[in-house]
């Protein structure tokens, strides 16, 4: 069994805005592309042109319908990847020490050369965030793009996870959630960010921002003043128009 660090210097993670996520899967594929080419073994695909295509993805978007008691049903797009938990059960369950949480930034990684592909960590993760690569038989998971965020070969502006860089709606934010003054911590405070399944006691670092209320009734009276009639007939309108025009600059 593997030990977690007692504390990490930073808590790097993602803040995902469920109010803005349109469910476009940009993050899913950008992640697939970067992590196929980079950290560890490529993310493989089985039967890619056949009856039952499947492959390894470190980030997936799920969509859920929500039916409120009153009003229209809603659709929430829910991107999910490793949440880099402070009390990560996937690490403590690992028999070889391959799964570990980094002291310097809190990122949970798998050291593929030590991974025996036993799959215990995937069973332990309550979020289903780990995927066994069928071709390589090692456990794959979100690395928070550890090979991007410190990468001297990338321009500084690009030293963010691939999913954050690509998100068209700007629904994904990256930063140090251990620093209360960081932009991501501020965003969580302002928008009421929440832990996914807090009852599991995993203390996820990643946070979700809730959707704003939908289909709310306006606070003002819709009939007055905005729709207060000035005319019911074309003739009445013409009379109103003459008056209104004389009030315009340079009136007649």
């Amino acid at each position: 069994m593997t030990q977690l660090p007692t504390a990490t210097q930073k808590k790097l993670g993602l803040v995902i805005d469920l109010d803005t996520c349109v469910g476009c899967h940009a993050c899913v594929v950008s992640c697939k592309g970067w992590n196929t080419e980079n950290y560890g073994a490529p993310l493989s695909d089985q039967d890619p042109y056949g009856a039952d295509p499947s492959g390894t993805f470190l980030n997936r978007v799920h969509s859920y319908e929500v039916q409120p008691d009153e009003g229209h049903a809603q659709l929430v797009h829910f991107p999910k990847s490793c949440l880099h938990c402070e009390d990560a059960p996937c690490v403590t369950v690992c028999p070889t020490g391959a799964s570990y949480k980094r002291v310097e930034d809190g990122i949970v990684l798998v050291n593929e050369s030590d991974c025996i592909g036993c799959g215990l960590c995937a069973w332990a993760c309550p979020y289903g965030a780990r995927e066994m690569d069928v071709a390589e038989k090692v456990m794959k998971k979100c690395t928070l793009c550890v090979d991007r965020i410190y990468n001297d070969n990338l321009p500084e502006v690009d030293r963010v996870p691939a999913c954050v860089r690509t998100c068209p709606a700007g629904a994904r934010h990256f930063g140090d959630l251990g620093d209360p003054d960081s932009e991501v911590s501020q965003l969580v405070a302002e928008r009421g960010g929440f832990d996914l399944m807090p009852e599991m006691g995993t203390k996820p670092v990643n946070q979700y921002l809730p959707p704003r209320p939908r289909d709310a009734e306006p606070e003002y009276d819709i009939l007055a003043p905005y729709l207060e009639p000035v005319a019911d007939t074309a003739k009445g309108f013409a009379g109103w128009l003459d008056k209104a025009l004389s009030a315009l600059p340079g009136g007649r």
Partner: protein
Amino acid sequence: MTQPILDTSPHVSDEIRKTTCYMCACRCGINVHLKDGKVAYIEGNRDHPVNKGVLCAKGSAGIMQVNAPSRLRAPLKRVGPRGSGEFEEISWDEAYQIAHDWLAPLRAEAPEKLAFFTGRDQSQSFTSLWAQSFGTPNYAAHGGFCSVNMAAAGIYTMGGAFWEFGQPDWDHTKLFILFGVAEDHDSNPIKMGIGKIKERGAKMVGVNPIRTGYNAVADDWYGITPGTDGLLILSLIHLLFKAGKLDLDYLAQFTNAPCLVNEDPKSPQNGLLLRDEEGRPQVIDRRTGKLAPWDGQGVQPNLSATYRHKGVSHRPVLHHMAERYLSEDCAPEKVATRTGIPAKRIRQLAAEIARTAFDEAISLDREWTDFRGITHAKMTGRPVSFHAMRGISAHSNGFQTARALHVLQIIIGAVETPGGMRFKPPYPKPATAHPKPHCKVTPGAPLNGPHLGYPQGPEDLCLTEDGQPARIDKAFSWENPLSAHGMMHMVISNAHAGDPYKIDTLFLYMANMSWNSSMNTHGTMKMLTDQDSSGNYVIPHIIYSDAYSSEMVAYADLILPDTTYLERHDCISLLDRPICEADAVADAIRWPVIEPDRNVKGFQSALCDLGAKLGLPGFVNEDGSQKYADYADYITNHIRRPGIGPLAGWRMGDKGLQHGRGTPNEGQIASYIKNGGFWSEHVPDGAAYYKPFNMAYQDWAVEMGFYDTTQPYIFQLYAEPLRRMQLAAEGNGSHQPPDHLRGRIMATMDPLPIWYAPMIDAFEDPAEYPVHALTQRPMAMYHSWGTQNAWLRQIHGRNPLYVPTKIWEENGFEEGDWARVTSPHGGITVPVAHMAALNENTVWTWNAIGKRKGAWALDNDAPEATKGFLLNHLIHELLPPREDGMRYSNSDPVTGQAAWFDLRVKIEKSAAPAESQPAFPPIKSPVPKGPSSLKWKVGR
């Protein structure tokens, strides 16, 4: 505990090559990372005006497109029966010779016997030039079956529309209202815009029968009944007129609301605008109380004054609008049932628009001078913006609906003002500044002008001397007079019927017409394979160009294999479908960031070769030799008009390189590559808004070469070209429609926006077919192209029919069930799934997931081929016969836009078949199967 030592700065790539994406129509800038000369990773280009660094799922999956096993590998000659998919590979020389031998005699004797139509093409200014040089009138791209209603309604009303023409002012808008869109029209800019306005706390409203995608994040959702958007919009206009929530100052100055309409029913000018001898529409000048031309210096048009002359009354357009829209027919209570939106919510939306437009008006301290010479100290804006595309336009009432939406924007002063909708250069450009359609054929010579354009009246239609349609698709005929993008969806049907005439060769590019791009798919396959009594194909020759093994390949006789988008030159040109932003003019290129590993050629380069072989003017030099070695040569050296070529950046001027105008520069493409694949120049601040009226913009537009003289104009709330068609239908003038069309023209070509029920409703009993059926395009899939992509098909590999709660419960559906879905034209049996966030009378599915067995290099048991399906089988390209036996195209009677979304069906539970019905036998694949697994790492 020790941690493994990790290299956190690994080598990213050997080289980044910047080009333009083509995974959908959005045309974002991409950085293609290469390792060992192979594509290692694709990301968005941060400097690019369209996507500013972000990239969608399709764009990032481009790496799986350039390795797709479906890529065609060499020119193909059909050896089995048409439709079998049996081909042999041939050389390019042989392919050109075959094409030449079919086409050269046609050009010499009857050029109209070639019908050349292109699909998802982004090189229309080039392909149309080729067709024009050939001399056939039968050319168009796919706009007729896509979204021509939006484009044409916008051009005729305000000199531009949405997407490539205009965008919401994302930086200032406070209320963004989104009607139906195909979510790649456009893709990333809308997502970026939604993110931006949400960050600012601005509000977003979605009007759409289906609450997915953009509508899922809308603050308010109006789950409208398909085909009734126009009714909702007219009701909003009704409420705004009734409450006097109109921007009168804006209407007076910048629209034809003050122009005077002839009201003499006996006059041949009845319903037209009063004009002076020079043809200029007249207004009453508030300064003098007398007539003055609309654009006279210092004129202050009077919105209210009427004019009587020689016994004829003239009232301003605004009076006509008040009369029309104050009618109780437009009241929320009257439209609530049909639209599916309660009256209270219609009022809520109108109040929200009124409140935001007038209580939250914004003002920028930027001085500007209008075309009347009047200087304004500020730029005032009504921060309400709209966007819509195919959801409202792919109906037979879509033109008038799109017009209504533009009129709604205009009456609150929200077009080209801060916070509203802004045009993107080279738009705005009024309909009158566009070409008119041309159709005069001379054997052995070019056509007499560009094929497509904007008719202003009956005299501009494409008719033969005996009044018959001149074009094979019957575009610009009395059936669909303003079909500005042609009617590609009618070409095969008309060619097969020999109506209006027979053709010899059908030449198609990037259009999957034997599958998801046709109505009546099964019927289309039959038309393509039908033989006459002598055993000859009714459509004698079919040439097709595609990069991939699409369903259409099997139905052609000769295949010209195209490259993927990373292996080719292209220009995203201001002469074509530009990629500009409201604040910047821009164009871009594609260039071969990798070389093809197959015997394929960019289609446009093949046209340069074939054009030269046929001796087409413009494609040969004076000595008869080939003029353009390839498409790159054309892009660099073609001159459209003096100083103007396909690309506006880095042209040659007197003192060196310059932008906009100039002579060709041999280093132009190299300059684009050096600059990241695009060129962009900022619109001057003083020219940023009020572009149609703002002389700073007009002067800049001339300087940049968008047009050669300034073109100020006013918005056409009242559209005279439509009224001119009505006048002809009423019996005026020498150009007369056939009698059977008079009533329809009078009813549908109203010069002020109207709503009428979708045409199909006149034939089908809504009680028998009570359900509306739609398709939507997934954000992560560009219709048929996505399925060959190993990553994208894992996201969207299945397309159940989504059924709303009411219908789900009525039929007792359960998970895993199948349904029989029937329209008057046909039936399909398909898997169903429940969805609550849906208009209660609407079902829908994802567009073009269903595939024919044998196409796209998929296995025959791929779910796309066994459980996937098309709604196309339920939609006929013709409406059912009328009482007199006439059948009209299933299109908008104004523009000919394919009315895909008028479809009505009935649904019943079905026993589960082995696979979706109808099922078709496999076609033989012209390419080998793909690998059984992928581990795609190109670096060491």
